[in-house]
């Protein structure tokens, strides 16, 4: 058992535990916090896989920006009066059952034996070679230049979409303002 296994085990347990905690947490704010933990654990796994750059990005984008957004929205909407009962019959047991079945199926599909049989490629040497941000940059800006640019467009569209959606229609505003003005008089 190398240290790597120990670290992997710890991180794996942490990530699974935080994930479970997240989906079962009653309070959305708690959920967000568990999720930050989960993302952090995954980021550390990236480090373990020799991708410090991705790990950094993971922390910055996910645990940082995205989570802040989530938290912001959760706060904006306030505490939710979450009803405990489930009004779709059979939803809960089926959800759990399907989740388990899916996990089982996926694990079976991973076909453990075949992959464990060939650990050779994933050597320390490979890890170090591929871990370099320069190598990643080279691939990204040479082979995947066009998709990369398209992604930027996607982000722009996402931004515009968010703005449009968040913008209130003129008549909505008026409808909202009118009674207020009436009240002031």
């Amino acid at each position: 058992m190398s240290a790597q296994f120990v670290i992997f085990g710890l991180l794996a347990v942490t990530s699974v535990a935080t994930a479970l905690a997240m989906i079962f947490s009653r309070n959305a704010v708690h959920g967000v916090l568990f999720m930050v933990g989960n993302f952090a654990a995954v980021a550390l796994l990236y480090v373990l896989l020799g991708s410090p750059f991705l790990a950094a990005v993971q922390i910055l984008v996910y645990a940082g920006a995205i989570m802040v957004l989530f938290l912001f929205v959760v706060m904006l909407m306030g505490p939710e009066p979450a009803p405990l009962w489930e009004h779709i019959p059979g939803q809960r047991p089926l959800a759990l059952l399907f989740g388990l079945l899916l996990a089982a199926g996926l694990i079976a599909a991973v076909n453990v034996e075949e992959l464990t049989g060939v650990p050779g490629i994933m050597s320390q040497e490979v890890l170090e070679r591929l871990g370099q941000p320069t190598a990643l940059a080279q691939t990204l800006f040479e082979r995947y230049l066009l998709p990369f640019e398209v992604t930027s467009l996607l982000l722009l569209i996402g931004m515009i979409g968010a703005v449009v959606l968040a913008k209130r229609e003129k008549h909505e505003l008026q409808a909202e303002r009118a009674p207020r003005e009436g009240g002031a008089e």
Partner: protein
Amino acid sequence: MIVPVSYYLVLGAILFSIGVTGVLLRRNAIMVFMSIELMLNAVNLSFVAMSRALDSLDGQVFVFFVMTVAAAEVAVGLALIVAIFRSLGSADVDDAHVLKG
């Protein structure tokens, strides 16, 4: 000794399934959304692991793209949730079951 790739894959599978379960269980739209992020993360993990196993950078590049898409998705998705919340007064996905404004 390096942790075999299959371990990562199994972990990814478990995380993914948890995400799916979350989507199926939770009624709060934000929680559903977060569960989706969980699934994306699980996939990312598998990508990185396979990238190592196959000695190719493509997997990592994909992780990159997934993150970008996730960011865009979060921006639009959250805006949608806010819009729905504004019009329905709730973020419960089950409350939004009629196609009517």
